[in-house]
């Protein structure tokens, strides 16, 4: 088997395992990464929401916020794990397409 084929398979395994990155933090009741809090969490941590933060925080409306479907925030962990895998597949599909495009654009012809 070609090494790139093996690496693609490795990627697929990582995609299927990715919900571990959701379930483990949930299990240990870990919140956001440091410095990646939302307004509510900042309010709790320092007692106020910085004014500049308020203006900028919701600047962008991502189609799959936090690697989940919109409106799925209250769903159970199994739903969120499914969404996580879908997000991994969508993300990788877009990244591979963009990387191929850039790679073809930049790479030298020949071998």
């Amino acid at each position, binding site marked *: 088997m070609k*090494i*790139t084929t*093996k*690496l*693609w398979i490795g*990627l697929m395994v*990582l995609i299927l*395992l*990715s919900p571990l*990155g*959701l379930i*483990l*933090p949930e299990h*240990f*009741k*870990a*919140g*956001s*990464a*440091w*410095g*990646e809090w939302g307004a509510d969490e*900042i309010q709790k*941590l*320092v007692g*106020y929401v*910085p*004014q*500049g*933060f*308020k203006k*900028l*925080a919701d*600047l*962008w*409306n*991502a*189609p*799959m916020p936090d*690697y989940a479907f919109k409106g799925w925030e209250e769903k159970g962990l199994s739903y969120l794990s499914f969404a*996580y895998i879908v*997000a*991994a597949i*969508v*993300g*990788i599909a*877009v*990244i*591979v397409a*963009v*990387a*191929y495009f*850039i*790679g*073809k654009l*930049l*790479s*030298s012809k*020949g*071998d």
Partner: protein
Amino acid sequence: MHIPDGYLGPATSGMFYVVMAPIWAKASKVVKKTLKASQVPLLAIGAAFSFVVMMFNVPIPGGSTGHAVGGVLIAILLGPWAACIAITVALVVQALLFGDGGITAIGANCFNMAFVLPFVGYYVYKAVSHHAPVDSVRRVWAAGIGAYIGINAAALLAGVEFGIQPLLHHTAAGQALYCPYGLNVAVPTMAGEHLLVFGWIEAVVTALVVKYLQKQAPDMIQE
């Protein structure tokens, strides 16, 4: 380490876009000269690998989480400039599609994770491996050490970027306008988390993949 929107003031986020522009330009130039058509799949796999590795959030005591980046591995296999492009693609997709990392902070996040991380990691790897044979154990160690130092350099920088915000932007009453924590909290936290936990994950993942490739595809590990 994905700085969201609202944590950096306009001066900082603007400055990092300005800093990254020539780095991205140089990366395209170098990659245009060095990347072979046969390596394009590897560039895509590298970017995808970095993206999915960053989804593996690891909880740490204190209720926080973090993750590896996988960027030093890409630098070892494709060189630091190609790694810069691959990680940039991953970071931009994370920000646009998943809201992971801010739109205004793409410059800063790319500087930390797509520039400093692969470059520091790569040159440490090169210095430690020092022309050792491709199949040597020394190369596995070099990869691990490079990965550890690379991600920690990036985390330290992110800590500084967070930490200078209260100095740069605050109200007359002293309330921060953006990131509310100063250098005394941001730097030890970001550096500490990565020195103690996430740096080791980056190191082990990088070293293991390099060890695997030594057997499976030694020609991929050349420099």
